[in-house]
């Protein structure tokens, strides 16, 4: 029997990696913008929120009526500001090397999630064709 959630956490992880690469690309585009503060996505927190698990010991704010603002969405989308390693005269906190490294690592993680999904599809195809395809 095929499980409901075929690709596990990887479809959600792909979303988060995409969002993170967008944030990092924005940091890199604003390398020379005065007073720009570099931001990043807290991957573990966002993925936990996306996959529905709440933090241990903490109850999520209940939003029973439609239109009320719940806490889950806010923490999930909140971006954190990077702590600068070096001060700069124009108040910009983008460190090109740090951002480039993070962007490269992010791309590798994205590809890892992609290959997990590909492997899952291959496995199913093997099961369907009985190894004949």
């Amino acid at each position: 029997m095929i499980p409901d959630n075929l690709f596990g956490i990887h479809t959600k992880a792909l979303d988060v990696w995409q969002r993170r690469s967008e944030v990092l690309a924005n940091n890199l585009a604003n390398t020379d913008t005065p007073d720009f503060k570099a931001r990043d996505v807290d991957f573990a927190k966002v993925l936990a929120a996306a996959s529905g698990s709440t933090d241990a010991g903490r109850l999520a704010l209940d939003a029973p009526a439609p239109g009320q603002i719940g806490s889950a969405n806010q923490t999930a989308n909140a971006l954190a500001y990077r702590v600068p390693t070096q001060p700069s005269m124009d108040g910009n906190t983008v460190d090109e090397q740090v951002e480039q490294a993070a962007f490269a690592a992010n791309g590798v993680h994205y590809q890892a999630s992609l290959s997990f999904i590909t492997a899952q599809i291959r496995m199913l195809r093997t099961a369907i064709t009985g190894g004949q395809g």
Partner: protein
Amino acid sequence: MSLFSIFNVAGSGMAAQSLRLNTVASNLANADSVASTPEAAYRSREPLFSAVQKQVGMGNQDAGQGVRVLGVSESQAAIPNRYEPGNPLADADGYVYASNVNPVDELVNMISASRSYQNNVEVMNSTRQLLQKTLDLGK
């Protein structure tokens, strides 16, 4: 899909940096220009960058939409004058007014702009590869 918006973000960065390179080229080309009055003298130009933020719903911080150029500012540094009575542009007292371009500043700006441009190109290339891999998903 947010990978597509990276093309816009990196594209805005490339556009901003190429405008910066453009002002550098203009400044360096006019480094030795002279004029008859201090007002007409060439002043060093520099673009002013600003981050683009899209305002969306409460508590939802947007990833940002790249960078834009607010405008080009002219340097307020003093205009140097030289005594050159033989120059056809000299004023009644024999002075010409040169530009206030500092070539060292411009070269530093040029290196910084071209590095930042390359960074944005790299971001675009990596994103293109990731999208290509996503298209090949399951093959």
